[in-house]
């Protein structure tokens, strides 16, 4: 295990972080929409939301990525590797985040919204000023967990041609045949990244305590 090999791993982890961060943010936005659909009074909208969540949580991410990368071109939409990776990971995490947020939205006490209603806040204002911040704060620990899950799951995007950390470790061990040190080094890098992410979320949780003691 040379410094040069380790440097290659560190470079590859750049893609891991890049793809994961974009996917988590996109997944949060899409997840909000999907959870709104699931909570909506329209039955077909709620059903569509449920099927989305069921499929993207239920089938292997590997298969989802292969479908996006290989099926869309047949429909005349050629997606480059990076786009397929981000779309696939975003859809998958959106399904998980939608479930989290659904719980968060449901747990915002109805009275808080009645109070807003009495004061004349429009439904839109009620959602963005009252409901969303509280739900997001309540699901922040779950979002932290999901972010770490996605950082780890991003190792699968190599199947659509993005060489990230795990794939680089595999590729390098297939030419140097020293897999154990390479995999241990990759594990170490994941641990460092995830440690930073966990710390960041702890900080965020602490700065949005709203006077509630830990």
């Amino acid at each position, binding site marked *: 295990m040379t410094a040069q090999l380790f440097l290659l791993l560190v470079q590859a982890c750049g893609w891991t972080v890049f793809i994961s961060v974009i996917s988590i943010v996109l997944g949060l936005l899409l997840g909000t929409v999907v959870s709104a659909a699931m909570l909506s009074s329209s039955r077909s909208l709620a059903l569509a939301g449920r099927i989305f969540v069921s499929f993207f949580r239920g089938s292997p991410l590997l298969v989802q990525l292969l479908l996006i990368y290989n099926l869309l071109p047949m429909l005349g939409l050629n997606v480059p590797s990076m786009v397929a990776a981000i779309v696939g990971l975003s859809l998958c995490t959106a399904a998980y985040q939608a479930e989290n947020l659904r719980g968060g939205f449901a747990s915002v*006490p109805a*009275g*808080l919204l*009645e*109070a*807003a*209603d*009495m*004061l*004349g*806040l429009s439904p839109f*204002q009620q959602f963005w*000023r*009252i409901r969303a*911040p*509280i739900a997001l*704060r309540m699901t922040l620990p779950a979002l932290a967990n999901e972010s770490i899950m996605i950082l780890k799951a991003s190792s699968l995007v190599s199947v659509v041609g993005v060489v990230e950390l795990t794939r680089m470790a595999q590729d390098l061990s297939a030419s140097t045949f020293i897999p154990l040190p390479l995999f241990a080094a990759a594990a170490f890098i994941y641990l460092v990244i995830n440690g930073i992410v966990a710390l960041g979320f702890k900080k965020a949780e602490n700065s*949005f305590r*709203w*006077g*509630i003691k830990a």
Partner: protein
Amino acid sequence: MNPASTAPAPAISVRGLSKRFGQTEVLHGIDLDIEAGRVTCLIGPSGSGKSTFLRCMAFLEEATTGTILVNGEPLGFAQDESGQRVRLSPQRIREVRSQVGMCFQQFNLWPHMTALGNVSEALKTVRKLSRAEAEERAMAQLKKVGLEARADFYPSQLSGGQQQRVAIARALALEPKIMLFDEPTSSLDPELTGEVLNVMRSLAADGMTMVVVSHEIGFAASVANRIAFLDHGRLLLNGTPEDVFGKPRHARLDQFLDTYLDRGAAMLV
């Protein structure tokens, strides 16, 4: 305005109001006028429908039949030319409802905003005031309820009584003509009810039209100008405290006072 008129126009006028949840009818054809500038107390056993009735007057519950006029304007539903009951536009509902403020049993303060944030929120988002102006007005309201020193505290850092006073300030900030109180002291420790009742007393003294659902019979007897007694979704009694509480008493009321009230309060009346 008109000294000749003994009965001023009612602030809220309820006619033939019924409410059903699924198969169960919880309110049966209630007629009631809420007088302007007076305090009306709704009392009754649990499950008598008094909270539901109050929530109908706030349009948080939609009455199944009947009409509610707020200062002469229909709330939520109106009769069209053919006498058909039609739902008004959300815009119109909001306009009429803006005359009504409400305080809840659970305060319902928004946990992610400070006391000042809670009070100034609607001034900013609904009244579209500038931040500075909204906060200035909010501060004045907090001062009224004696909490200007707690402006930067989050609800979780305030006692129950303080939270309810912030909630009152929040409702008053929009300058409603009528204030509805839904059991404002029920979830407070006994030693904290006083501060809330004092705020309500001074509000009454300022001439605010108030409708209060309460178990505080002492408060009802001493502050209210009118008492309405509900039982099983029907308005059984409606009159001055002297009329209602004075002897001879209605049998159901007597039973209620015996069962539901602590002896101390019952002595008062």
